[in-house]
């Protein structure tokens, strides 16, 4: 019994592949030029000792890598990175989800609130950091003013290693909420209203609907937001540079900032490249894991 005439099938497949690639080609070309090529270059450099200008001088093999693994600072920055990711990602998603749920209510003037909640998306990291620097300022910042007003003693938000990572994370959460909120709101609006109508009639509580309908139906969006937030958190740079410069005592010296310092302040391009490669691999692995473990639980319509 013929399943299909092979010729036809092959042709169909080929044309599918061709048109698939056609649709992808603009992206692939640009990625090739502006991401893959630099990445390969970075990998190449990670095996070399370079001069301060970044010209490779001497092949050192995995020398940079082995140095890193024995370096205290490197482990410190890994610790800071992990801490930062754990502090920012879940918090951002949770708060943004809460706001998205609130803003998804059909009420008068809701558009104003939606804009308010997404406002931080319109602010550059630089601008936001400037504002937060003010807020955290131990002398004139509003936080300490408030603490003093209630009789508590001020906190060195960005200077105390105990608080610094937390403070930077909090500012980051604020900066990222707008965007996360917007994406989640979009996801919420795509859920079929009749599902809620049906649940309303069944008399299920708001929370049950949230758990049993909203969250599962939102899971593709949540999954997306999770991955994106994770990647972004791993690559956070601006607010660290502006708020703490990796200090105090390396408490906020996340890996990307360490890379930056190595490459552009210390002119240690080889080591910076090695760290960049490690970061790349780590994030790739994590994302791959998420796809393997989580996407199965995601419900696509």
């Amino acid at each position, binding site marked *: 019994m013929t399943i299909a005439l092979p010729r036809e099938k092959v042709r169909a497949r080929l044309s599918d592949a061709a048109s698939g690639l056609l649709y992808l080609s603009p992206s692939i070309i640009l990625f090739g030029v502006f991401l893959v090529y630099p990445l390969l270059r970075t990998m190449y450099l990670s095996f070399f000792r370079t001069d301060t200008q970044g010209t490779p001088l001497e092949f050192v093999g995995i020398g940079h890598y082995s140095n890193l693994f024995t370096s205290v600072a490197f482990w410190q920055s890994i610790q800071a990175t992990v801490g930062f990711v754990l502090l920012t990602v879940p918090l951002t998603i949770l708060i943004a989800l809460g706001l998205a749920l609130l803003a998804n209510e059909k009420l008068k003037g809701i558009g104003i609130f939606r804009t308010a909640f997404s406002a931080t998306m319109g602010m550059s990291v630089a601008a936001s950091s400037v504002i937060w620097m003010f807020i955290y300022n131990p002398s004139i910042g509003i936080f300490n003013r408030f603490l003093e007003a209630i009789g508590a003693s001020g906190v060195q938000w960005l200077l105390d290693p105990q608080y610094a990572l937390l403070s930077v994370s909090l500012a980051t959460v604020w900066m990222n909420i707008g965007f996360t909120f917007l994406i989640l709101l979009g996801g919420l609006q795509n859920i079929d209203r009749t599902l809620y109508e049906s649940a309303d009639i069944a008399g299920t509580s708001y929370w049950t609907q949230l758990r049993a309908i909203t969250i599962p139906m939102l899971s593709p969006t949540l999954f997306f937001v999770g991955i994106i937030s994770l990647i972004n958190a791993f690559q956070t740079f601006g607010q660290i540079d502006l708020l703490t*410069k990796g200090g105090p005592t390396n408490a906020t010296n996340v890996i990307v900032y360490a890379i930056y310092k190595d490459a552009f*302040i210390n002119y240690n391009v080889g080591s910076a490249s090695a760290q960049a490669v490690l970061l790349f691999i780590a994030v790739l692995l994590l994302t791959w894991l998420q796809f393997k473990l989580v996407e199965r639980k995601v419900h696509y319509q």
Partner: protein
Amino acid sequence: GSEEAAPVAATTEDGKTEVVFWHAMSGDLETALNTQVDAFNASQDDYEVKPVFQGTYEEALTKFNAVAGSEDAPAIMQTFEVGTKYMIDSNKITPVQEFIDKENFDTSVWEENILSYYQVDGKQYSMPFNSSTPVLIYNKDAFKEAGLDPEKAPRTYDELKEAAKKLTTDDQTGFTMLNYGWFFEQLVAAQGGLYVDNDNGRSGNPTKAVFDGEEGQNAFNLIKEMYDEETFLNVGQNWDDMHAAFQSGKVAMYLDSSAGIRTVADNADFEIGASYLPVPNEADRQGVVIGGASLWMGDGIAEETKEGAWEFMKYVSSTETQAQWHVDTGYFAINPDAYNEPIVEEMWVTYPQLKVTVDQLSETKPSPATQGALISTFPQSRLSVANAIESLYQGVSAEDALKRAAEETTTTLVQ
């Protein structure tokens, strides 16, 4: 690009040679800079200087590194003092000495203390431009309140500690210093201490950091002790945070750059005083190292363009220009005659603090210590020092902290 063809100078529409000038001056400083550039362009018909802001010194340097030697390279590049060695090593610059020699230019009109930073083996590499030194700034009102003489600022570590103790109250701390390597370097140099061996790297490539000697210890001990006594406030690494602390009355004395004095004086609603950098009681005051930045001339560019750059450099070092520059920004005049200009004198009446900074500089005794260290990995070393100071606040002993910073610096030196 091909090495053979001689680079052609870019020209403006009206036939002037274009001289691109990359700088890192932002805020009020950029305004002041642009004023000078405009004046220069108006003063002659051959050249047109085009100032372009290139971000922070680090950012500008990164970009310079990428284009150095190509036709996109600037004719004039402003670089901070710690990038000096990096620029020299890059081999993509033209030492200004070439032009000094060519014209037999008399450099004696320039302040030697400033020039010396950018001299290696007697060769002038770059043209000092915006230079500043650290001074002690204090709140005269707070002094009065604490029963101190507002006209007599502490000059030694002991006096400083003493005053700080008196000034410290519930919501005011006696003293602070920005956690920035530059201040530490200054405290060391003021005692005549070296930062690295081989005469601060001026008589040969440095091999070892030596700032953890007695002088460095003194400085660290000072910070540590005062911090432990709670007469020292940690303001972190941000200039604005430090200014805010002082201006809001959180701190009564601090070390600041001479360039910042004007703005502080303008925005404070109390009287402020300025004084020399304190030294340990027993130490012999050596003075300060010149900070700030200098102008470098690019290489691989057309000869005409270089000429233009040189003309501009000469122009900005002239007496009148320097006087204006000093008045506008608080940076030093590299031409001491400038201080005799009427506008400067007027200025000093309003801002007597500025004069203090100039005096301090002119009293400085030239030596490898006050000339400043010459190392290519200076920025990294500064990070190590900043880390060390931070660890002081965390209870690490002054000795250990300093040692670690020195070791780290040594490592980068040998690499």
